[in-house]
């Protein structure tokens, strides 16, 4: 095992390198994923996407990293078609907020082809997309819309909280024969952590206990795992032992892990960066009440964003996002 540390962005970049080395059918496409770096006779250090995640890939795989026009409908439509006809594309949807302009190829084509062709079609598509608030990118570039893709049968949605999972989940996503939405939360993207060398996959539908505890279960994913861990640390100082479960995969969902931690602690607080209505937090809460009723020792609590657009002003954006303080306050309401 290595103690080599990478950022989530670098871990994603490494996963893309490995995927492209091991499978010639893997291509990248998106706005500025090559960033002009492929121009003949030009040794300019290419941009590698708006946040630099795909930097260097076009040099290694000049024919397989494609800059696209600024048209999400074009990117995703092309990618779905490429996937259905034999390639294994990784499309970058610069911000998840742009989902609205390209939903049809995902909702009505990618998600349905395998089903409607009796299993004879396959759509090995990965859509990488940056989600969430925390960069003062305002209401149109800060949303956490994974609840939409999670709710569409035929799509898988995963969301890492750390670099090691980012690498392993992305390799699983690319090698999956079904369309996968891979979310990259903004506040997680530059967090660094240990990343194993080489080629490995993190399986879908397997949540992970990232902190053991006995009094209350904090269920988190993506950016809120760090928030839950901070809260757990402070709760421990006050004598409350909080367990933190990182879902990692929203669809498929590890129901067993959720119900197991509920059975252990009897109390659940779900921490979700997204808005509260029809969301993952509500979905997990419903599971706890439906399947885990006899284990519930307290009401199920949700800590989410409010039902409103993400504000631009920093002080408002900070107040909008789930914080350790809000998690601690929710836990305090339980006893």
């Amino acid at each position, binding site marked *: 095992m290595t103690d080599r540390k990478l950022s989530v962005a670098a871990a994603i970049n490494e996963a893309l390198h490995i995927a492209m080395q091991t499978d010639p059918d893997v291509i990248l496409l998106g706005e500025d994923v090559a960033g002009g770096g492929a121009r003949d006779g030009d040794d300019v250090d290419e941009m590698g996407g708006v946040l630099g995640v795909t930097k260097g890939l076009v040099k290694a795989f000049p024919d397989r990293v494609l800059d696209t026009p600024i048209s999400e409908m074009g990117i995703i439509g092309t990618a779905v078609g490429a996937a259905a006809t034999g390639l294994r594309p990784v499309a970058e949807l610069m911000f998840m907020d742009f989902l609205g302009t390209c939903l049809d190829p995902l909702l009505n084509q990618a998600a349905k082809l395998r089903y409607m062709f009796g299993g004879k079609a396959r759509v090995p598509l990965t859509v990488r997309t940056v989600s969430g608030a925390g960069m003062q990118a305002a209401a149109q570039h800060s949303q956490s819309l994974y609840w939409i893709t999670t709710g569409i049968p035929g799509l898988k949605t995963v969301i890492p909280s750390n670099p090691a999972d980012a690498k392993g989940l992305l390799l699983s996503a690319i090698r999956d024969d079904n369309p996968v939405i891979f979310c990259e939360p903004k506040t997680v993207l530059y967090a660094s952590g240990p990343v194993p060398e080489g080629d490995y996959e993190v399986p879908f539908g397997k949540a992970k206990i990232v902190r053991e505890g006995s009094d209350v279960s904090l269920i988190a994913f993506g950016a809120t795992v760090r928030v839950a861990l901070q809260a757990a640390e402070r709760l421990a100082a006050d004598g409350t032992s909080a367990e933190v479960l990182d879902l990692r995969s929203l669809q498929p969902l590890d129901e067993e892990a959720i119900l197991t931690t509920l059975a252990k602690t*009897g109390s659940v607080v779900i921490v979700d960066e997204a808005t509260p209505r029809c969301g993952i937090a509500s979905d997990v809460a419903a599971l706890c009440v439906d399947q885990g*009723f*006899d284990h519930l*020792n307290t009401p199920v609590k949700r800590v989410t964003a409010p039902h409103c657009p993400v504000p631009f002003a920093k002080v408002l954006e900070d107040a909008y996002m789930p914080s350790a303080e809000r998690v601690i306050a929710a836990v305090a309401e339980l006893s």
Partner: protein
Amino acid sequence: MGTTAIAMPKLGMTMEEGTVVEWPVALGQHVEKGQIVLVIESEKNEAEIEATAAGFLRHVYVDPGEVVPCKTLLAALTDAVDEPFDAETFATEHRARYGPEPAAAEPAPATPAASAGPAVAAPSPARRPVAPAARALARKLGLDLDAIRGTGPHGRVVRQDVEAHVAARERLVEVEPGVGLEVLREGEGEPVLFLPGFGSDVSSFAMQIHSLRPTHTCIGLNPRGVGGSDAPEADVYAVERAADDAAAICDTPTHIVGASLGAATALELALRHPERVRSLTLITPFLVRSARLRAVTEAWARLAAEASPEAVASFLLPWLFSETYLADDTARERTLRGLAPAVARVPAATLERTRAGLEAWSGRRSPDDLGELRAPALILIGAQDLLTPDGESVGAALPHAHTIVISGAGHGLAIEEGDTVTRAIREHLASVR
């Protein structure tokens, strides 16, 4: 001007609820402080409750015959007969301050609270919250949620409350690996260990324990298979083993009180572990079981396997109590009601195993064996006892024994002659000092 509450008292450590038997004072009548204002019954025992203050019996919340948890508001006295008094408000305030929490499953009262008169003015049926985990655990353990105090927000009963309740009520003491016996402790002072008779639990000593707990540490031991005690697989629950179990929970010399088979256990304890015994109180003891006792225990075990606890209790009544006691309809019905739940705490398998132990022990100890015993002993005998008629021979065999024969009393002395038995024990304990 002021209002005084009369609530269901908690008279013994096993008492969770009580029945209102009678209101000797008419509604609107004046009572003096110390005057008997209420008669209640709990687990076979009747108790007269004195008014804690003078006043007029202004409102009665619970009618005779109703069973309610301890602490439930039963009636209100007011200083003046005509001072303003709102029965419902007083009940709500009382419950908020003293409990009990209204039962979760309590249905809404059929009669509107506004209807006048003492008939039904039930407390407002605020639903007490119970966490699903607490409800599931209570269901699994067969516990009554109404008896469990809620410590969560809004008085919610949470899982920890059920666990604490279990821990408090069932302080199982491990007497050998894997065998925990239910030991109830109450009071402060010299230890007194109570050993119940065949097929009984420590609730049969409720009156004695209630009376002695201000001055003594009362320890009630439920034998193997009784109440919450473990019931290890065995063909025989031997008296000798029961005595060793009792020895295991006495770490200092202890006053031992045993009734019937509990007296046999006490004798065996004194013979096997004399250093643990400070004094003996043997209620209706025997050395050789009578043919009738064998027949009754046989029928008891068989009935317990085939009939309801109520049927078992009604079968037992004529064998346990005297002619005089049975002639009193109130006493008979009350005892029957109290006996049934106690009987239900002893399953048929326990009765069979204990019966085998009783049979094996019968005749094993001779009067000569008892001659070794140094501990001062009190022997209490009922003159009309049908089941253990040779009690006096036990008293004669013991070198330091004082025997009291209670005339007109049956085998169930601790219940039938509760006060006399308590007084005699108290004097005996004092004389040992």
